[in-house]
């Protein structure tokens, strides 16, 4: 079981009384091989308790054929489009940003498997969006050219001043002061335009991992630093992998290669496990007996599993 990976999953009390369906999960990948512990959260019911705000990037296209003019304008629209969505939280944690690509990928992979299971359990959730926000591009002093060009004019405070005055939720508290009408991106200074949807260098590898998981950016950005929001319909994540409920059995000791990696999720134990196994001809998933013990697998019990 050298290649076995274990992720501890804890469901937390739904903090949002408005939507008891709102799932809240915490994934913990233990430290190992000199790598620190990594965390990731899945938080449903975004913004249902207190409004959250993002900037939507819309396109307006106009043509005046008689003048030979064709124009596309990107419009920045402050709104709450991701309200009710499931957020991947903790993406900006330094440990996660600094982690090896393999560990980043495994943790995201596990989160997506879990999301697929949630969708499978509650097909009504298939319409939900899953998103995660990454830190945006700032200048060498850590200041956001985007905020300086937009939010600062309206809020009259720097992010530091606002955080001191209003606390952690300062950006959403200040949102009512920000433009209520769409703003043309092309009116902003070039330096602000250039950072829209750009990710901080430290997060660029994680951004690639999110794209590989099917969470694309480009529709919404953060209202402070215009960092990208990576998002996908939950339906597309469910469709993404060969995930299914499968019965398990022990991998025969004499099993021939090749083995491949499989994720398996044991809700009762709060364990997400990745191990080398194979799909038997009868559709059962064969895993090492140690893995079965970790999962607490019972005879004829089906587990949510997918190629890893």
């Amino acid at each position: 079981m050298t290649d076995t990976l274990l992720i501890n999953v804890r469901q937390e009390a739904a903090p949002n009384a408005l939507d008891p369906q709102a799932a809240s999960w915490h994934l913990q990948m233990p430290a190992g091989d000199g790598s620190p512990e990594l965390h990731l959260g899945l938080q449903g019911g975004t913004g249902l308790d207190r409004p959250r705000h993002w900037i939507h990037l819309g396109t307006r296209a106009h043509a005046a054929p008689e003048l030979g003019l064709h124009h596309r304008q990107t419009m920045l629209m402050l709104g709450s489009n991701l309200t009710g969505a499931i957020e991947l939280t903790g993406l900006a944690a330094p440990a996660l940003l600094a982690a090896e690509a393999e560990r980043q990928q495994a943790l995201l992979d596990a989160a997506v498997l879990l999301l697929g299971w949630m969708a499978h359990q509650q097909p009504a959730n298939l319409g939900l969006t899953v998103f995660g926000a990454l830190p945006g591009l700032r200048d060498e002093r850590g200041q956001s050219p985007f905020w300086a060009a937009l939010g600062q004019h309206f809020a009259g405070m720097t992010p530091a001043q606002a955080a001191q005055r209003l606390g952690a939720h300062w950006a959403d508290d200040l949102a009512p002061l920000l433009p209520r009408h769409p703003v043309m991106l092309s009116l902003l200074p070039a330096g602000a335009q250039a950072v829209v949807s750009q990710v901080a260098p430290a997060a660029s590898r994680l951004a690639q991992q999110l794209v590989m998981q099917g969470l694309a950016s480009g529709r919404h950005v953060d209202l402070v630093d215009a960092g990208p929001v990576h998002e996908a319909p939950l339906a597309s994540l469910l469709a993404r992998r060969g995930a299914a409920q499968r019965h398990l059995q022990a991998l025969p000791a004499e099993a021939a290669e090749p083995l491949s990696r499989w994720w398996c999720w044991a809700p009762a134990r709060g364990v997400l496990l990745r191990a080398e196994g194979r799909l038997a001809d009868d559709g059962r998933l064969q895993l090492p007996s140690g893995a079965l013990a970790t999962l607490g697998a019972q005879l004829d019990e089906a587990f949510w599993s997918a190629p890893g």
Partner: protein
Amino acid sequence: MTLPALDDPARYLMRPARSDDLDALERFAVASAHGITTLPADRAALADRLARSQHAFASADDASGEEIYLFVLEDLALGRVVGTSGITASAGFGGQFYAFRNEVIVHGNAALGLSNRMHTLHLCHDLTGVTLLTSFYIEPAYEHTLAPQLLSRGRLLFIAEFVERFSERVAAESPGLADDTGHCPFWNAVGRQFFDMDYPVAEKLAGGRSKSFIAALMPPAPIYVAVLPKAAQWAIGQLHPVAELPFSILQDEGFDADTWVDVFDAGPIVEARLATLHSVARARHLSSAEGRHAGQEGEAADGRPRLCLISSPHRDRFRAMLGRVGETAAHLPTALARQIDLGPGALARVAPMSLNALTRGGRHD
């Protein structure tokens, strides 16, 4: 022969432009790159406009709103035309007349006691259908005389005389900040995002198209001034220096300049209700004194003589002049009546010039 001084009020006559004024109009159009935004520097186009104006003055048809009226100012002492001004009966006729309206939007978070006031520009067509004062130009030598006063204000008496042909609201555009090469800070920040061309090119396009094609390209959302470059912010509502004289005359008349600016260069657009303008509100109707006893024209009975703007009630033979009329005079002095060709029984409109106008008109002479 000694000519009367340039500031002799009797020296000037305002009248409808005629076919033989085309050379003068072309001279004015060429001489005023910025001063006249609505006179094309193209002889054929000018001739066409002149023809439209002549038709508007002459036609007895009901006004459609499509009319334009072009006036010229004659220096009677030299027998030459030294300026022009115009009226467009209905702004944006057949379409819309676009402008940015200055508006303050308040955003706030009441729970936190935070709020702000943001200056915004709203694309609007509030001014569609208003009557526009256009095409003002006076030769530089006459700028500091009373001539421009007559040339600009005379239009108001014309409109007041033929109200059925005009809107009760009157507006006028003034050129905004731009340098001689057409570099315009507001255009560079805003207009250029929609029109990939230099300001003079867009301005020319718009001139021929009543700006209504802009609707297809500009977004409906207000523009927050605070996000614009500082140079563009400062240009909003600022006047091009060449337009100071005609602008100040309109301000003296009571025009308001705070509400609208031009969509291209953010130059101020003044607006007022016709009835509130000084020359209109203070005007009296007087018939000619001709045929009356001399005593009735006497200075004593007529009160203190004041410099007045005087216009005739004839459309195609419209005349406006400056002259002194007694404050309480019951009739127009015969000489003035003859100069404006006032027929028997006809009533002239007589409006005392404001102190501002007199000061301004004479300040350098």
